[in-house]
């Protein structure tokens, strides 16, 4: 986000009241009465060129959110507005005829590089898949484009990789291929779902660097989903913390890390081990583990584990986001007392 921009630029992605409920099946002939509230009313924006980190523990709804943004899942409620210049669409209402156009603008990088490539298809098949299914270019043109992309993601000499199968690549190389596939259509927005969590430390850094570098060069925005706050620190301009389907805190990365306001963010941060034995962490204040939000009560989602829970939290519905700093919001009634 540039400082001199006089008016607020139109966000690339604008999410409002997004919800996704998964029914718990009760058998063939009975209507489900219980729902997992995987994502339960979240709002956020991503500016063009910005990267937003979505962090939280497993089951908090971060992956579900990501999958709704790329239309792998349809939301139960709410809207996801995607604007790219003149192109403006509500993701949930992209019709059959418009889907290919949408797919060329919004892409995804998956977590497991061992599962995100079909073992029977070569690197060329994998990277050129978006071109092939959308009928872009002739075969030699696609080949040239794939070579270009492989070069771009650092798989050089590119023609040595073109006709390799996934099992002939290392984990880091596979993830580079996955990045090439995501970028082959020149998208504006990429959802990256834990793209480095399966990789070894030394390889992780080069993939992170590659992704940051490409984002800058190609003007791509990421929604970077991760459970690892340390990775998010290096990848994202802003961080949004999710807990049981709700967003509990969002703000500029360094601000959230240095000055967390929501009790959950504080617990999460103090639980992260530090690679320096001379630093002693502050003890984690909360108890228990995350469970599933099945037909949750209306009050604050975090109330049972919260060390600061008070009357106000019990008597009111789940708190709205309160502004706690510049661009920094937290959903807690007791921000000022903590």
């Amino acid at each position, binding site marked *: 986000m540039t400082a001199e921009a006089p008016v607020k630029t139109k966000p690339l992605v604008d999410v409002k009241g997004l919800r996704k409920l998964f029914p718990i099946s009760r058998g063939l002939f009975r209507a489900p009465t219980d729902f997992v509230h995987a994502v339960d009313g979240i709002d956020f924006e991503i500016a063009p060129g910005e990267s937003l980190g979505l962090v939280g523990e497993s089951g908090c709804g971060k992956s579900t959110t990501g999958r709704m943004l790329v239309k792998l899942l349809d939301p139960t409620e709410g809207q996801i507005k995607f604007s790219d210049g003149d192109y403006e669409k509500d993701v949930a209402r992209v019709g059959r005829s418009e889907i290919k156009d949408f797919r060329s603008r919004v892409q995804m990088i998956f977590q497991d590089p061992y599962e995100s490539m079909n073992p029977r298809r070569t690197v060329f098949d994998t990277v050129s898949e978006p071109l092939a299914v959308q009928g872009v270019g002739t075969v030699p043109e696609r080949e040239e484009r794939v070579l270009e992309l492989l070069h771009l993601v650092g798989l050089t000499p590119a023609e040595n990789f073109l006709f390799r199968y996934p099992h002939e690549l290392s984990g880091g190389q596979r993830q580079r291929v996955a990045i090439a596939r995501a970028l082959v259509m020149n998208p504006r927005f990429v959802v990256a779902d834990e793209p480095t969590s399966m990789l070894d430390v030394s390889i*992780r850094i080069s993939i992170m660097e590659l992704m940051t570098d490409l984002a800058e060069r190609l003007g791509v925005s990421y929604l970077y989903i991760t*459970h690892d706050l*340390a990775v998010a620190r290096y990848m994202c301009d802003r961080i949004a913390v999710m807990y049981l389907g709700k967003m509990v805190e969002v703000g500029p990365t360094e601000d959230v890390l240095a000055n967390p306001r929501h009790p959950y963010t504080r617990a999460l941060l103090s639980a992260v*081990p*530090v690679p320096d034995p001379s630093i002693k962490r502050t003890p*984690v204040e909360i108890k228990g583990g995350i469970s599933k939000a099945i037909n949750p009560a209306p009050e604050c989602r975090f109330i049972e584990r919260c060390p600061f829970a008070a009357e106000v939290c019990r008597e009111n519905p789940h708190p709205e986001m309160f502004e706690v700093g510049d661009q920094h919001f937290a959903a807690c009634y007791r921000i000022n007392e903590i």
Partner: protein
Amino acid sequence: MTLSLENLQTRRIDPDKPLLEVDDLVMHYKIKIGEVSAVDNVTFTIHQGEAVGLVGESGCGKTSTALSLLRLLPANAEYISGQIRLNGEDLLRLDEEEMRERRWKDIAMVFQGAMNSWNPVYRVGDQIREVLDTHYRGEMDIDEQDRHIASLFSAVGLPPEMADRYPHEFSGGMRQRAVIAMALACSPELIIADEPTTALDVIVQDQILKELKRIQAELGMSILYISHDIAVIAEVTDSLGVMYAGKLVEYGPTAVVFARPRHPYAYLLLRSTPSITGPRRKLAPLEGEPPDLVHPPTGCRFHPRCPFATEKCVAEEPPLEEIAEGHRVACWHYDQVPELDMELVR
């Protein structure tokens, strides 16, 4: 027979007395295309009451080393040389029956993903009882067993009545606690914890690591932690060994190694680990890929990826040399490895 955790609490610990000494261990896996040199000349000592960590990337031989200690290697593995001495007794010379005796009583193991290894059709308490039945046949009656299981559960922070529940009624973190309770069942002197928290979320990981640390201190046990996560190792260990391509490349007190790693690999590993505390350091990527262990590189196995490598590194293998009290490094150029700088980003 009175087996109880109280007995353990009075176990005398002499921190200078070695509990487990691994001496020049060499282990290969035979595969179709040759032999994988999985563990090569690994030497380290775990003292009584000490927490030692082995850290390294996947395929570096840390899990193979752990399995070697318990002699739980797959059939195609072969010990080439070396000794593994537990209280002075070479485990590699024991027959299978004697080794089985040692396995739960003296050394217990918390496996990677062990929390998913509970048999879903038996109560958790009964699965621990099975271990007691095997190792203390006829020495404990049911009431003693129940009391012991209850004390194990409270030792790992689980309500004792949970012993009557089935595994699916436990959350991931609780299951891992129960795994630790089972490892404690025969009050071993050493627990090998192979990636004990890898599949867990940070908050639960924090709880489990704290529990392990507390148990270790209270019961005077030694723990060998195996992990790819150097942040975890930094927090829970007294000493650590860094492994690369089957070799132990650096070993020393955790605080010393983290303050000034001397092996280029250890240095780069630390430089490439992001942290949420402190200023935002620039991360250094480690170029290249780990080597093929069927045909490991000549000389120092790290030389193809090492920024300090010279011709000597290609030709000669550096020995694991003691450069300071208890701090050993296998590198010809350890004195060239700079201090961890604090170069900031942006």
